[in-house]
């Protein structure tokens, strides 16, 4: 019997690197556990549990679209690297909770093979006794036998001389450093004539009880200096030999009962993932540590910042973000500012933001532009998404003003990648504000720029764009407050249904009035609190130990939303739509207050 327990902590080869062709999902198995292996367009190799954690459907029948893996059953999309779910088509208005994440396994490439395992410890095996300057993987051969059954026949197949006098195969000496590895070294190089001879390393991949894959590599043959035909003959020779060994062993084992399959234990999903998420889930608020990887000028006033995790370990991966998401960045000067992520789908190895240096900077953009250097470390929030892109529209209109392009750029990249129709309008004061032009022009959606318009020209253009509302189309708006207001007013006047109009403000342009005082009852925690004039509801809650995620703290981003069970809110935010405000069933705790004497909150 092989030591199953010990085998769990080893690295095993589970595929050849050449098996993972672009846009393909390889179906692998190790110790009874199935894996879906796929190479993203950026060359990263993903090794995931071969089941969508929604309903257990094999991901190996899914679609590798280059940046995400789609489950065939419900179209859930999982991001390259993190395996975080980025989109659940059944609920297009929700940002999937970031905690929805498939089980992943480490994957490394070495010697032309892909290595993985259940919980491998230590470094990859190193072949120290053979020449590894070049390596050529043999065709893998799977045998219906245990690795133990296979070990000796494999060695004998290579070392036993045939009686025939024409057996001019090289003589090998065999060495088995562990139960899954066989090193065959050519004992006598003088006899082998013109055919190149090579040492061979065989790795026995324990696929399942009674199934083993032989993965061999020829060591030290420089393919570029070897005739292709000769190399192919060599590969065919070894393949034939391995198949013969396989066939003989299987026929001797034909009458043996087939062993019961190994049933791997599949980890339970977290409590968080097992329960039904709330309508909006703002996720946890643990800060992330990020490093400034690059700073580039996009225009005289806009810089592009690339943030990466502190190291390359899988556990330090950045949480998965969806289009429309922003992060709160803690700046060197102590300020916290919100920036939309502009990443395209599957770009999970970094966060990218584009920041305009504002003349009237309150210190945020100035600090980023002037103080930040490559290599600096920062704290950031996890991505929060209160500006979710629905992807079930028949057509999506993205309308950006100036640097308000940033969340819409991420959306356009996602829509383009999914092949969904969209139009992007970019309103800008001058040509230099038009960013990512060549990329946007090359993308599938219509891309139109409107430069240097006066407010009345903007209004006229907007009226033209929004003239024909359609319940199956959606609008996404982001830009300076006056432009945003103009677009919202125009959409309302053209009778776009309110649920089709989505917007995000940079900041809350309205003056806030915090002169009222009121009481709050917290239904779930049983607390009653007083909110005095001059203090926000959010800060009173925090002082009393009620933690609540928040971000912009000026009523623009939607992070600190709280459900209202009773009482009439005094809305002072620019996040909620008019009808949401009128419904009065939620409020933004950072700025909004009460018209009634008391509010009852679902906290």
């Amino acid at each position, binding site marked *: 019997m092989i030591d199953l327990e010990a085998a769990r902590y080893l690295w095993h080869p589970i595929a050849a690197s050449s098996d993972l062709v672009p846009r393909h999902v390889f179906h692998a198995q190790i110790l009874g556990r*199935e894996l879906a292996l796929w190479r993203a367009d950026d060359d990263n190799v993903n090794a995931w549990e*071969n*089941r969508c*954690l*929604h*309903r*257990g*459907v*094999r991901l190996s*029948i899914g679609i590798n679209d280059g940046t995400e893996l789609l489950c*065939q*059953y*419900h*179209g859930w999309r999982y991001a390259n690297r993190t395996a975080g779910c980025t989109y*659940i*088509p*059944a*609920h*297009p*208005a929700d940002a999937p909770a970031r905690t*929805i994440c498939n089980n992943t396994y480490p994957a490394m490439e070495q010697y032309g093979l892909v290595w993985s395992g259940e919980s491998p410890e230590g470094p990859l095996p190193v072949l120290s006794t053979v020449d590894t300057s070049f390596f050529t993987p043999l065709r893998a051969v799977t045998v219906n036998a245990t690795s133990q059954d296979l070990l000796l026949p494999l060695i004998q197949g290579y070392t036993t001389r045939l009686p025939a006098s024409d057996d001019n195969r090289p003589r090998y000496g065999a060495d088995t450093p562990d139960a899954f590895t066989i090193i065959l070294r050519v004992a006598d190089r003088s006899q082998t004539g013109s055919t190149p001879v090579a040492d061979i390393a065989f790795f026995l991949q324990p696929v399942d009880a009674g199934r083993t894959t032989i993965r061999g590599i020829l060591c030290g043959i420089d393919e570029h200096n070897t005739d292709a035909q000769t190399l192919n003959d060599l590969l065919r020779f070894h393949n034939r030999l391995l198949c013969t060994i396989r066939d003989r062993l299987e026929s001797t084992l034909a009458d043996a009962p087939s062993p019961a399959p190994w049933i791997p234990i*599949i980890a*339970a*999903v*977290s*409590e968080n*993932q*097992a*329960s*039904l*998420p709330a309508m909006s889930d703002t996720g946890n608020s643990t800060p992330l540590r990020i490093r400034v990887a690059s700073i580039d000028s996009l225009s005289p006033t806009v810089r592009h910042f690339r943030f990466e995790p502190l190291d390359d370990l899988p556990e330090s991966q950045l949480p998965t973000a969806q289009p429309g998401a922003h992060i709160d960045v803690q700046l060197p000067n102590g300020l916290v500012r919100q920036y939309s992520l502009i990443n395209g789908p599957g770009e999970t190895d970094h966060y990218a933001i584009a920041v305009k240096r504002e003349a009237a900077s309150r210190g945020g953009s100035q600090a980023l532009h002037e103080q930040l250097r490559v290599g600096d470390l920062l704290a950031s929030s996890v991505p929060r998404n209160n500006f979710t892109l629905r*992807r*079930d*529209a*028949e057509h999506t209109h993205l309308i950006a003003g100036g640097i308000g392009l940033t969340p819409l750029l991420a959306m356009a990249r996602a829509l383009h990648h999914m092949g*969904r129709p969209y139009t992007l309008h970019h309103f800008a004061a001058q040509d230099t504000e038009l960013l990512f032009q060549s990329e946007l022009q090359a993308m599938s959606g219509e891309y139109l720029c409107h430069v240097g318009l006066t407010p009345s020209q903007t209004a006229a253009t907007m009226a033209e764009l929004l003239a024909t509302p359609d319940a199956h189309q959606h609008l996404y708006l982001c830009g300076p407050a006056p432009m945003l207001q103009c677009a919202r007013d125009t959409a309302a006047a053209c009778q776009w249904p309110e649920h089709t109009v989505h917007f995000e403000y940079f900041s809350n342009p309205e003056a806030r009035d915090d002169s009222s005082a009121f009481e709050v009852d917290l239904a779930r925690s049983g607390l009653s609190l007083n909110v005095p004039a001059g203090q926000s509801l959010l800060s009173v809650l925090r002082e009393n130990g009620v933690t609540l995620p928040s971000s912009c703290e000026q009523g623009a981003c939607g992070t600190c939303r709280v459900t209202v069970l009773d009482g009439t809110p005094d809305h002072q935010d620019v996040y909620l739509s008019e009808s949401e405000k009128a419904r009065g069933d939620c409020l933004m705790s950072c700025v909004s207050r009460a018209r009634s004497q008391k509010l009852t909150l679902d906290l």
Partner: protein
Amino acid sequence: MSTPCSDPVALGLWHPLAAIEDIPPSSDQHTRLLGQALRYRKDAGNQVAVFDGDRPLPVTQAYGYVWTCLGTPARPLFDLPEYAEPDRRNVCAATVGVRVSAPRAVENFLDMGHFPFVHTGILGVEPHTEVREYQVELNEDKDEILATECIFYQPQAAAGASGGIMADYIYRVPHPYCSVLYKSCPTDESRLDVIALFLQPVDEETVRAHALVSVIDTQSSDLDIRLFQQTIFSQDKPILENQLPKRLPLDPRAETPIRADKVAIVYRRWLRAKGLQYGVIPAAA
């Protein structure tokens, strides 16, 4: 996979074996139920007898199918009153073998979210993927699950449909291995078409899926109706056969549900409360 069933809940249920009209008369037929080989035979009067070896088993003939029980029936077979309505076309649409447990197949039948991805261009189409909020209740008196107000965009909801509609669905689960779907009838707004799925658990991880269609449709032929259902069933098959594990896990932490899966959550809870063992992975105590 043919250890005999020892689950008293499954042994006490009525199970379908075959469409009565498909049974050749006066010749022994063989099938398997709960891991057990059975023999059945239709006489000239269309009466079917079922045997376990030489032991005659109880028989119910209902909804076009013959049903039997390996133990003592805990209760009569559930009601499907629409079947008796005189103007309905009742069609036994297909019996298909699928390598999956019966509860996984029931859950798939209750699921709307997969329509655009699995029944593309027929029961759903992208980008119309939203599963709206719907209602689910467990009717304690009838001991069955009812999901109502289910609405989904469908490009071609039935054999007789042309053009897309927002289809209204009602789902009933009156039996752990059977489900009945009521959907807006494309040819008569005031009526509901019925599609029922009756699963015969051949063993814990294999079923014969029997389909009954009961519709108000004066245009489509029986052949059209059968072929339509066969297409739908065969589209589900590769999904069901690729679910891991094949038995339905009842532990709430085995899989990740979303709001669209409300009815599945109630179904799993209901099976748990019944103490059903066959075809499921029971939750850890």
